[in-house]
């Protein structure tokens, strides 16, 4: 087991190295001078400022050397400075990351639980009304841009009905503490989390349904029937459990995509996370921030993949042997 953890982790490290190098080369390969890019809002294109930036970014050195420095800094968690705020990008991301993780985490759980439940219901009622409804629902959610769903949700639930707040993480100035503050946070979380979750939820529902129907045809399920087990138990203990394995892999991919997807949700709901940070940095051409968020997001994806892979090995005994 330990060997697997080590080798899998090593594999991810290579991926991270690749992503970092890729991101680095991407910015360097972009048309134009990155220093001039970054001069943007603050620098007013002042040649002295650009020269200062060039030196600061080490652009006067040969490319491999630059990459070396870049990697070295990165190893020390130094993602560079935001020229716009003049602060370390790492700090800026660190202070917003909890919000993104809360949002993506809530969306992930919601999608996983609701999606699996829906897929389960649809599978056991295959061909009946409830299956049709769930199928239609999942096709609709799968097909809708979720930032649009988010906007519509604001229109309905914040605008018309006033049930949920439309922006931010808290009622500002309310001075809530303790449980009250948590409840307030959760109240703000409902719309963004649901809106982000719908797409993944639809994917899970479809996947769970398909996987369960396939598993339900497996011989061991028939064997369980032949053993006289109650159908409910067979669905739960044999079909669902076994069908969830492929979902685990999917969950790893989706968890990461959710983090990236928060760029949209956070923008719509004014949710102060790293997605919105990236969006705002994009507008201001604060490339260090953009790249920083990109790298952090990638790492979260890679990390969640790693966790899922290891989990999968743990859950599926067959892979453990291999």
């Amino acid at each position, binding site marked *: 087991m330990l060997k697997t953890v080590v080798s899998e982790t090593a594999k991810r490290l*290579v*991926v991270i190295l*690749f*992503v970092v190098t*890729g*991101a680095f080369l*991407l*910015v360097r390969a*972009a*048309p134009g001078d990155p220093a001039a890019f970054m001069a943007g809002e603050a620098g007013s294109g002042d040649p002295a400022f650009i020269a200062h930036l060039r030196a600061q970014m080490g652009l006067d050195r040969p490319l491999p050397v630059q990459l070396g420095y870049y990697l070295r800094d990165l190893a020390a968690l130094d993602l560079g400075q935001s020229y716009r705020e003049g602060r370390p990008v790492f700090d800026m991301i660190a202070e917003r990351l909890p919000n993104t993780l809360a949002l993506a985490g809530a969306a992930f759980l919601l999608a996983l639980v609701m999606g699996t439940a829906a897929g389960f219901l649809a599978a056991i009622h295959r061909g009946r009304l409830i299956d049709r409804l769930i199928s239609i629902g999942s*096709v*609709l959610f*799968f*097909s*809708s*841009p979720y*930032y*649009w*769903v988010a*906007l*519509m949700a*604001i*229109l309905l639930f914040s*605008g018309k009905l006033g049930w949920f707040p439309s922006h931010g993480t808290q009622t500002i100035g309310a001075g809530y503490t303790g449980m009250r503050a948590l409840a307030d946070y959760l109240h703000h979380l409902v719309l963004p989390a649901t809106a982000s979750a719908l797409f993944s939820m639809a994917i899970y529902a479809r996947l769970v349904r398909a996987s369960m129907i396939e598993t339900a045809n497996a011989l061991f399920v028939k064997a369980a029937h032949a053993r006289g087990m109650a159908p409910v138990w067979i669905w739960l203990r044999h079909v669902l459990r076994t069908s969830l394995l492929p979902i685990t892999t999917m969950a790893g*991919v989706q968890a*990461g*995509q959710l*983090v*990236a*997807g928060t*760029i*949209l949700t956070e*923008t719509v709901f004014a949710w102060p996370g790293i997605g919105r940070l*990236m*969006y705002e940095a*994009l*507008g201001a051409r604060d490339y260090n921030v*953009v*790249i920083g*968020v*990109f790298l952090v*997001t*990638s790492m979260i*994806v*890679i990390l969640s*993949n790693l966790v899922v892979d290891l989990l999968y090995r743990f859950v599926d005994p067959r892979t453990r042997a291999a």
Partner: protein
Amino acid sequence: MPIWKSLLSRPDAILALILLGAVVLAGVLAPLIFPGGPWRMVARPFIAPFTDMGHPLGTDALGRDLAVALIYGARTSLEIGLVSTCAAVLFGTAIGGIAGFFGGRVDSLLMRSTEMFQTVPSFALAILLVAIYSPSLLSIMAAIAVVSWPPVARLARAEFLSMRRREFVQAALLSGQSNLRVAWSQILPNVLSPLIVMAALMISMAILFESALSFVGLGDPQVVSWGYLISAGRGVMARSWWLTFLPGFSIMLTIVSISILGDAIGDSQDPHFERKETE
């Protein structure tokens, strides 16, 4: 044609076909029906839908006809969806095919790289690409293709790999047919149907991707796209919700249609050929 037959036997598929057909037709014919283009200001702003039959879906904040914009948006979405999907499918199939066919070191090298592309969050990467190379139809298509080829490659690899082990492929190789010929004439036709189903899915994803990019302000400014319309309508949502609702609804309908058709094609394809004897 068995595909058509099976499509026409499903009411949902017929509906999807009609819808998608209408979208495609409108998109293709847009410049002929509305030669003035989507940006023309034709009436007073904020006409509500179904109130002025000259402008059935009403007008936007500048008095431009929303129906015309939606039709031109269809054109953009389809163009981007098709081109980027084609590029991704061709590239992905080539990479995956080579990996699956030859196996061994080539395979692990190609698949490791594919995996790397796949672990990077695709939306973030697309944003980065478009932002750095400045938004245009070309850069958007390229970015979408870049982030969407890995699943194709993986699918193609898996299919090629399993086909490569199939006995009819081995027999063909044994009979002296060249690798390329075997890959082309024996394997490719057999992996086409899962690839087609995947391509349908990818067109949907490409359309969603493009709309999301436009929404965050990274669309091609010369063309109208549904994502752009949503983002333009967003500011006036409280007053004229339909300006946001209708473009999103168009996306939804189009993608629902594509998904249904993709499912239907997927269902109709395999069993006929792949079915084993019943016992």
